[in-house]
């Protein structure tokens, strides 16, 4: 083997990555060639220096408290507000239904807070009424819960738990989740005259467009620095889930009802302090807070006690 070939293989040889045949030839050559032995020593020295230098550099790195704060905010948002995020399809349906339910006041004037307030009342009323009565909501909830199509949509090993039910003009709309996963939900339409489920729609909230982790961090940073969120009422509030609002997806949106211009660069952030909750809309390009809405009421948390007895 000539020196040039040995030189080309020395690094792999030292790294234990040369083949047995290559090792044999290299060692035979090194035994008789002083310049190549010197090159071997030089290569070892360079590897050692590089390793030491990077180790010394890496040792100097430690995370600042800011990093943990950002992580904490992001994971906190997964816990309480993630669940609310899952309900968004229902809220959208509720918003469209409410347009016909509230007399004397067009839906576009309701505002997000009012819509959620009424949706919350619908949910609470449903929860209270179906537990011990034969009210239409309870009947619709029971029919949906017992329906084989609903069970199949949720997965065979999952028990259906009714979350919210409403009855409009003889049709019950029942939102059901599975007992094993809160990530799969089904909206069942129940014909109360026929006493049967007429339509089952599996909701896949997780397939909705999601912000990237980097964008979530950007949202948290913008919100943290925004003067709009420094007023005494909001200061110190917990940041919840950051998400892409419907307004950013070009859909008819409940956000549009409160005067938010549809844009592809809008993100929303849920902010909570004590009993009060706000939705903050941010422009990720301009890095500004576009709108802060206080919600008048929030949906009750998921709880198995909502299951009809």
């Amino acid at each position, binding site marked *: 083997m000539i020196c040039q070939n040995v030189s080309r293989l020395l690094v792999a040889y030292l790294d234990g990555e040369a083949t047995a045949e290559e090792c044999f030839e290299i060692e035979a050559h090194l035994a008789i060639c002083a310049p190549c032995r010197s090159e071997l020593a030089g290569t070892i020295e360079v590897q050692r220096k590089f*390793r030491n230098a990077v180790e010394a550099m890496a040792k100097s790195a430690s995370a600042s408290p800011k990093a943990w704060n950002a992580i904490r905010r992001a*994971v906190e948002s997964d816990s309480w507000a993630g669940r609310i995020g899952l309900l968004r399809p229902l809220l959208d349906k509720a918003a469209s239904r409410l347009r016909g339910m509230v007399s004397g006041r067009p839906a576009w004037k309701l505002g997000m807070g009012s819509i959620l307030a009424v949706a919350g009342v619908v949910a609470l009323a449903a929860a209270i009424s179906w537990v011990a009565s034969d009210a239409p909501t309870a009947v619709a909830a029971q029919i949906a819960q017992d329906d084989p199509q609903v069970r199949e949509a949720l997965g065979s090993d999952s028990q259906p738990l009714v979350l919210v039910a409403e009855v409009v003009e003889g049709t019950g709309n029942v939102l059901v989740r599975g007992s094993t996963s809160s990530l799969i939900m089904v909206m069942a339409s129940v014909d109360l005259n026929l006493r049967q489920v007429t339509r089952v729609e599996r909701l896949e909230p997780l397939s909705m467009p999601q912000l990237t982790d980097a964008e979530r961090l950007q949202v948290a940073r913008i919100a943290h620095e925004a003067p709009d969120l420094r007023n005494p009422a909001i200061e110190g509030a917990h940041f919840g889930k950051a998400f892409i609002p419907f307004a950013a997806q070009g859909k008819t949106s409940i956000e549009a009802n409160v005067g938010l211009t549809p844009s592809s660069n809008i993100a929303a952030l849920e902010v909570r302090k004590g009993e009060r909750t706000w939705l903050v809309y941010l422009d990720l390009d301009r890095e500004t807070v576009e709108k802060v809405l206080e919600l008048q009421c929030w949906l009750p948390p998921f709880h198995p006690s909502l299951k009809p007895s």
Partner: protein
Amino acid sequence: MINSHVHPSLVQALRVNAVNERQDPAAFEVVYNRHKGLVMKTAFALMGNIHDAEDVLQEVFINVYRSAGKFAGGETEFKAWLRRITINKCLSNHRHKRTSRSFDQLRDEGFEPPEDESSLQPEAKCMAEEERQDIQRMLQCLDRRHYLAMVLRYYLELSYEEIAEALQIPVGTVRSRLHNAIGILRREFRAREETDREVRS
């Protein structure tokens, strides 16, 4: 399944949270405090500055929190998993140029010192000037491709095959990249030594 060394409360808490039923932020904080050093060092070595390394740190731990349900194993496996996702995140950020400044700029200016001095370990503050110069010298003569291959091999001790997979290149290219990088560094060191000799004489 989980050996006694692995903060069982933490993995359990994370697993439980993975199905979105309830969570234990305190347990997650324990995991973070125990392993942030490993992630930060790996990220800093690969990204070259504190700012980008912290971005990776945040993304990795958010990922850990959300994917903990998929993890099964002990302390060793947990560390290996953490290191793997850190490396992947760093390389992905390089690939998609999600770095605060271009690597070439970093190369020209040397490593960016942390903005906040308090984030430096006390011993690091005493890092020998010579070592610091060595690092800068290495950054200045290696381009991003060569530098990443060198860090993966000599700091993170990945095999050629693992490096090939991480960088999405053939094993033969890993070989030649390391060979070339070491050649560049050798020539650089030799030139420096000659300059120093001339200065002394």
